[in-house]
């Protein structure tokens, strides 16, 4: 059984089909990519998978459980964590506090814990802090721990978002154009990290990318969409040679 199964997914916006009858699987332990030109509907697929958009029709299932009509925070609790195309950090909070938010979905102290501070709450706070610091280290931004997110360089903002996602201990990590705006070295480092996420942390990674060459290097499977429809799927080499894919990219001049 695939970790994530998407079948006949449709997402319409007042008549425009952003996602049109899309079906695909993400296998457990894989690095899978969804690529396509600008406006092809990639982010819309993510938004449907994470509950931010309500799919017009179709089925999305995670480990056999349907995600249709499930609230985003519940989907996060199930172990599906996303990043955003246009980095969305908590700007007036520190890097540490940002990354601590990752631990929210699998910890539980609430109002009374906060006010009365029982032992369970203090233990959990310590665990959240340790986990956040661990992933800040892992991503390599320890020196920025106390910075406010809004004062970070663009690359560090991206890195903070990854650390935040990892701190949630995801089963499936959804990265929306993680390389956008990064320089060459940072991109190389990103590729390395993504392989590590899978190999060291055992996370299944699903990446949206705009840039074909980048994902070709690390993906086992590539799904190509154009105008919301799937036009190719398979191993990187085969997809790259696919005439429909070449046309989609050349035809759209991107």
């Amino acid at each position, binding site marked *: 059984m695939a970790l994530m199964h998407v079948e006949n997914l449709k997402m319409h916006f007042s008549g425009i089909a952003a996602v049109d009858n899309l079906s695909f699987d993400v296998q457990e332990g894989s690095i899978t990519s969804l690529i396509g030109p600008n406006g092809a509907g990639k982010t819309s697929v993510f938004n449907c998978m994470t509950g931010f958009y309500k799919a017009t029709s179709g089925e999305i299932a995670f480990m056999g459980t349907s995600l249709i009509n499930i609230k985003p925070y519940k989907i996060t609790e199930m172990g599906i964590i996303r990043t955003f195309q246009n980095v969305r950090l908590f*700007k007036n909070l520190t890097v540490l506090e940002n990354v601590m938010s990752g631990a929210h979905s699998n910890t539980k102290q609430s109002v009374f814990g906060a006010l009365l501070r029982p032992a369970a709450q203090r233990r959990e706070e310590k665990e959240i802090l340790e986990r956040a610091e661990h992933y800040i280290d892992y991503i390599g931004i320890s020196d920025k721990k106390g910075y406010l997110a809004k004062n970070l360089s663009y690359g560090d903002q991206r890195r903070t978002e990854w650390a935040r996602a990892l701190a949630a201990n995801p089963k499936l990590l959804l990265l929306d154009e993680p390389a956008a705006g990064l320089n060459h070295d940072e991109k190389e480092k990103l590729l390395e990290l993504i392989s590590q996420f899978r190999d060291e942390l055992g996370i299944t990674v699903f990446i949206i990318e705009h840039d074909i060459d980048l994902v070709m290097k690390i993906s086992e499977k590539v799904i190509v969409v154009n105008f919301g429809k799937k036009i190719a799927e398979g191993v990187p080499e085969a997809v790259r040679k696919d005439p429909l894919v070449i046309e989609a990219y050349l035809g759209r001049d991107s």
Partner: protein
Amino acid sequence: MKLRDRISSWLESKFIQAAASAALLAFMALLPLFTDNYYQNIVWNAFFYMLLALGLNIIVGYCGLCDLGYASKFAIGAYTTGILIKTYHWNFWATLPVSIIISIVSSVIIGLPTLKLRSDYLAIVTLGFAEIVRITARNLKITGAATGLIAIPRPTFFGIRLVKITHWYYVFLILVVIYIIISFRIRNSRFGRALAYIREDEDAAEAMGVNTSLYKLYAYVLGAVLGGVTGSFYAVKMTSISPGSFDFNQSVNVLLAVILGGMGKVPGVVLGAAFFALFPEFFRDIPVIGDMRMLFFGLLLIAVIIAKPQGLWPERNK
């Protein structure tokens, strides 16, 4: 290092913070020994605003919700206590749990349907609700209509009848300390961080697993409860309450104190409230400026909001 950075790193230092807080608290505790009733009452008024501002800060500062009717929250507490004491002859302390429960119920009724909508709706609904509370209080017999409730008996505390202004000075000082502790405990907890995540970016908060509608409701209810308790104490301190004490102006004053001091930053909110309560007093007796003090105050507020939208309290960290 720029002066601003130096000030903020100095304020960050734990030791300095602890020492300054202890010194300030000691000063506040000793103040009644060398001031008369008049000044104590002015400072009491500042404490009262601090309580309101700290309560509203949970809603506005911590969670980023817009509440334009905070006066209704403390009106509910004040009337609950006032009615239970006057009409049903309850002991003041026994009215507190009831005041808390009614605050919870009313804020859930308002918050549950509205907090799911876009945040601007809450502003409108809270504004409307505050007017409903005020108009209801004006027209019901049990709330004393336009006259309000008068001659509410003073409570006793460990055998002491709280009648002197000095008593109320200390009661409210203790409350301020409790509210500050509550604020800090919330701020440094999983719950409080979740509120900050919502304030900063609601979608990203949801994506990190925060049940945003539930947490917004928690923040709203908690703010309402703190306001309700403040209202209960206000009723017995003043011994009389009327619909005029809870008008739109009050809501705006408290909201401005929170914004002025720096949304979400506890020391800033406390100073904002103090400034708000004390400012008009300082200028009252000076000719010309005294008459125009509210105009001057308004201009100052506009200047602050334009120049430092994050409030006057310095930003933490880099």
